Every structure is written in structure tokens, then in C-alpha cells.
């Protein structure tokens, strides 16, 4: 079958360009509606979450039991692709030199950070771990957060020891008070009494 000679007419070329531009512009406009008030609120919350979880530090110490929060941190870090850092702070009393050997505490640190690594591995997240000896747990956590430009500090709670004047433990309260970034504190429910009371459970 013979064909006509193909040639491009300037008018045809202009119309073709107009059709392409007008269809493209119209559909782009259709697919980008303005956000409603509630959508703006949601977007702001999302954006603050992104800021919050850019870099996460999970802090452990003999006074802060964060194991249950580590699982949450690993999931959060995976979902938000955050940097995850677990630290164990061993408080060295002033009666000892700063680098004194503290076998029991160091062993506890190895256990806590080992468990944290296992959790991170299960969640397919890269985790940096660090054991720090310091005079003050609070100051050590805040210093590390400042050094790493952390966006979020995650802490567990310590409620099995003696009452220290603050329901969460004074170290946790102080970190939450002085931190320059967001602090997420997880309190385990197992120490509560409300459920047992309501059911009349003597335990």
C-alpha cells in the first residue's frame, strides 16, 4: 500500500503543542487540590514527626529500663528511616575515678545493648551502641543527644525502686525537663494497680 509524503504543517505543530500543554496542565491542576484545614493539621503533624524521628537515641541505665521501648524505637526507625543509637550510661560515683572498672554494671550494659541489637536486627534497622561512664546519667544523655544532634530521646521508666520524689524517677524527669529535643517516655503498664483494683484482685 502506498503512503502519502509525510510533512509537518506549522499550524498542526502549534495545535499539537497546545493540545499537549492544555491536557497536561488541566490534569495536573486536577490532581493537586488545595489541602483542607484538617489536612493541613495532619501535614504539620507529619512534618513534625519527620523532624522528631530524624535521629533517635534510646537511653538505658541502671535507673532507666528502656527494653520495652527499644522494640518501639526499632519499628519507628524502620518506618521513618531514622538513625538509631542506643546508649547505656553507667553512673560512676565521685568516690571512684571516672574510668573505674564496674564489672556488674558493664555486664548489665552488655546485656541491655545486646538485646537492643537483636531487636534492631529483627526489625532490619542499623543500630549504633555505646556504653558511657559518666558522673551524671542525665548530663551524659543530654551531651550525647547534643553531640549527635538527636531529634528524639526515647526512655523507659524505672518504677520498681524506691520512690524518689518523681513518679517516673528523677533522672527521667530531669532529662525530659532539660532536653532540647523531643523526649518520649514509655511507662510499662505491668506495675499499675488500676486493673487489679477494679477486678478486686488482691495482687
Amino acid at each position, binding site marked *: 500500500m502506498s503512503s*502519502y509524503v*509525510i510533512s509537518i*504543517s506549522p499550524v498542526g505543530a502549534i*495545535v*499539537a503543542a497546545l493540545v499537549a500543554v492544555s*491536557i*497536561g496542565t488541566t490534569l495536573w*491542576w*486536577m490532581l493537586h487540590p488545595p489541602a483542607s484545614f484538617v489536612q493541613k493539621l495532619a501535614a504539620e503533624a507529619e512534618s513534625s514527626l519527620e523532624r522528631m524521628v530524624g535521629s533517635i537515641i534510646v537511653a538505658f541505665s541502671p535507673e532507666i529500663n528502656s527494653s520495652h521501648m527499644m522494640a518501639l524505637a526499632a519499628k519507628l526507625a524502620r518506618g521513618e528511616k531514622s538513625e538509631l543509637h542506643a546508649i547505656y550510661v553507667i553512673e560512676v560515683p565521685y568516690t571512684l575515678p571516672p574510668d573505674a572498672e564496674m564489672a556488674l554494671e558493664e555486664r548489665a550494659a552488655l546485656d541491655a545493648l545486646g538485646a537492643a541489637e537483636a531487636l534492631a536486627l529483627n526489625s532490619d534497622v542499623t543500630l549504633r551502641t555505646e556504653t558511657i561512664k559518666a558522673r551524671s546519667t542525665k548530663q551524659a544523655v543530654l551531651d550525647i543527644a547534643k553531640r549527635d544532634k538527636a531529634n528524639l530521646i526515647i526512655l523507659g521508666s524505672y518504677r520498681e525502686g524506691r520512690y524518689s520524689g518523681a513518679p517516673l524517677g528523677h533522672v527521667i524527669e530531669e532529662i525530659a525537663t532539660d532536653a532540647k529535643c523531643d523526649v518520649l517516655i514509655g511507662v510499662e503498664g505491668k506495675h499499675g494497680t488500676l486493673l487489679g483494683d477494679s477486678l478486686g484482685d488482691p495482687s
Partner: protein
Amino acid sequence: MGADIFVGLGLVLAAAAGASNVAFLFAGLVYVCIGLAYTELAAAYPVAGGGQYFVLRGLGDIFGFIAGWAVLLDFTIDVTLFAWTCVDYLSQLAPGLTQSTHPWVHFGATFLLIAGLCVLNVVGVRESTAFNGFVSALDVMSESAILCLGFLFAFRPELLIHNMQFHWPSPYELMLGISYAIISFVGLESISQAAQETQRPASIIPRTSIALILTILIFALAYSNLALGMQPWHPILDAHGHPMQFWQIFPNNPDNQGKAVALLASQVPFYGAIAALYVPILGAILLLISSNSGVFGSSRIAYAMSSTNLLPSLFQRVHAKFRTPATSIIAFCSVAILELIFAALPALDPGAKAVYARFFNGEDGLTFLADLYAFGAATSYSFVFLALIALRLTDPLSPRKFKIPLNVPMRFRGLRVEFPIVGVIGFCGIFAILLFTLYTHPIGRIAGPSWLILGIVFYIVYRRRKGLPVFHSQKRDWKRSQIDILRNAGELELMDEYLANIKATDELRAKAEA
């Protein structure tokens, strides 16, 4: 919505010849007015009833029924027409399905498609949203490619001017062409149907609606101008071996009329080699999806009409096992099959052909279905314009996030209202198209009004039996209803605005009375 041009293009080119682009322009301008009216109403009243709901609210029960009944005609025709043209597009690749040479095969294939859709909808098989999205995206890209490459490589402006000068139709043919052109712009009901399922419809619906209106208008005008000014890639010869222009393959050739976009795509230089293979399949899939939209559209409208006591509660009945409105689906698919039989009868039986030739100007097949489609669309759209005007006057308190431009401020029953000029222009335009349809289509003139009369008789009998007013409206709490609609749609700010409007008006009235 975009599937209508796959059906309308060939019919308009056959009827309006050198003025096809003018026919599309006239119908397109009316369509813009209709689209704006639907946009305003669907954003203000995001409910599934669509046009019939607007008319019910604006004009009352009897007119709501008539508009809904006309939409039902359109949806049942929609099922048959799109299934018919789906087979036409497939016949481009499988010539054994061609209607003129194998009418029984064509009839059987169309029948099976309708029956298949009926069964699928009764059983409740869901369409994949991802698949629909993929087909829609492919359609937009393909149509844009056909037009852009067609204008780039095959468009001759002098040919367009020549055709407009020397092949200008008679006024009768132009009116016929315009009445066919309006079927390329049917589908606005789908927007209002979707409004109830859209989150924040007042914001999303206007934007989607306007974008679709513009896209379809651009496609329709571009296709018609390209078809008239197109230098085909390969020479097209008539029976005597003389070269023909592209648009000349449509008059007196229903087979070609049913697959115009596929034929045009195949004549685009270079791209046509690929387009000839996949555009018929793409067109067939799109048309099948549109046919399916007719099946669930009709059952949804019937459900909505039934819930407002315009139709018996039978149409709200849900199948115990499948949880679908099986009675509605089967009833309207049966009507669609009846329409198919009427459309195909002349090709299947020579006796019927003679009757059709005598009484219906020989209209059959595709033109039979298109006539009824145009009648149903023009009738329901005419009522929607009247409803728009009525609602602007009687319900000015409902917030309208989108409002048609060009309004005249005035006072009505003590309230400030805005009278829509575009509504009046649109009504005149669509009413003219309704008159064109009645004047130029013997089938539309007879079968269309017959459908309406049948429906009105049915309505009178039903309302009398139920003890409801026949020519007056049932009392309804529209204020409560509107609050529920806005709350369910997630338009809480608009709901607050509506409540504030009501409160302010009540206070004003109380002051005036005091």
C-alpha cells in the same frame, strides 16, 4: 466519562460532515454550562442520587421522578450502547464480529456482554480500582498521543477549510449532528454519583469536574477538527478506486461509525502502526467499563429513587446471599437487552427492516441507541438546569463552595439570592438540543416520550397505592437532611456555615416578626 467520544465521533462525522467541529462546539458549550451546573449541585449536595436528587429537591417529587426516569433510560441505553460499540471496536481486530456482515454474531456478542455484566454485578464481583486507574491513564495518554501526533504529522489546515466550505451540511443534518454530539458529553451523572463517596466533595468535586469537562471538551474539539483536516497515512479509496477523505468513511457506514477513534488512530503516521493494534482493545475495555457503569448506575439511581418514595421499595431490596440489589440489576439489564433487541431487529429480520424503514426513517442499530441516549440526556439535563435555578431561589442557605459565575443578586421571599444567568443560557441550549433530537430522530420522538409516559403511569399507580400525594410533594425535612449530608461527607466547616446561616436567618425573621 472519556469513553463517550469513542461512540459519538463517528456518528457526528456521518451526520454533520464538514460542520462536525461546529456541532461539537455547540454541544460543547452547552456541555460546559451543564458541567458547571452539575459541579455546583454535586458539591453542594453530595449524594448518590445525582440529577434526580437535585430535581427532587428543587422542583418536587413528580419532576424528580421524571428526571430520574429519564436518567434510568440513559443508564439502560448506556449499558446497551457501550456493549454494542465495545463489539464494534473489537471487530476492528476480529472482522467476524462486524455488524453488517455478521449481524447474529454481533448481536450474540453484545447480548453475552450485557448478560455477563448482569451476572457479575449480581454476584458482586468488584472492579479493580487499580485496573480502572491504569486503563484511564492509558486512555488519556493514548488519546493525547493520537491527537498530538495526528496534528503534527497529518493535519492540513487547508483541508479543514475546504471541507467546511464544500461539505457544509443542511440545517437538518447540522441539528442531527448536534444532537449526536451531546452524547459525547454524557457522563456528568457519574460525577454526582461519585460525590457521595468522595471525602471533602465540596473541594474535590469542583476541581475534578472542571478538569474533566475541559479535558473532554478539548478531546472532542480536537478530534473533530483533526478528522476533518486529516491527510490519512495510507490512501483511502472508495468502491470505484477514487481517493476519499478520512471523514468520508463514516456516512452510510454504521460499522465504521461504531469504531471511529480506532480508525482515526490507525491513520496517524508512524504511531498508527502500533495504535491500530492496541487502540481497538483499549477502546473496547473502556467501553465495557462504561457499560458496566450503566449497570450499577441504574441500580443506584433506582435505590435512591426508592428511598425517597419515587419508586417501590422493591428496588432497595438486597439479595440475601450476594448482598447486592439483584432485583434492580436484573430488571434494568432486562430493559437493556430489550433495547438491544429493538436496535438489532432490522439487521436480523428483513420484515422488521421494512417496518423501521417506513416508521423510523430506517434508523436502527447504533443510531437507534444513540437517538434514545440523546433524548434521555437532553431531558434530564433540562430538568437539572431548572433545579439549579429553583435551588438558588429556595435554598440559598446551603453553602456552595463552587458557584457558577455570572449571577444576578436579588431578593426572593425575603432572602438574598443569586439568580444564575448561565443556568438560563444552559437551559436554552439543552432545550434546543432536546428539540433537535425530537425533530431529527424518529425513534427519539416516539420511544423517548413513550418511556416517560410509561414511567409517569407507573408512578401514579405506585403513589396512589402507597397513599402518597401524586402531583404534590411529600413533606421532607431538607434542613436536617442537608446537615446529615454535610456531616457524612466530612465537610464539617460547611456544616458549621450552614448552621450559622440558618441561625442568622431565624434571628432576622424573629426580629422582623417582633
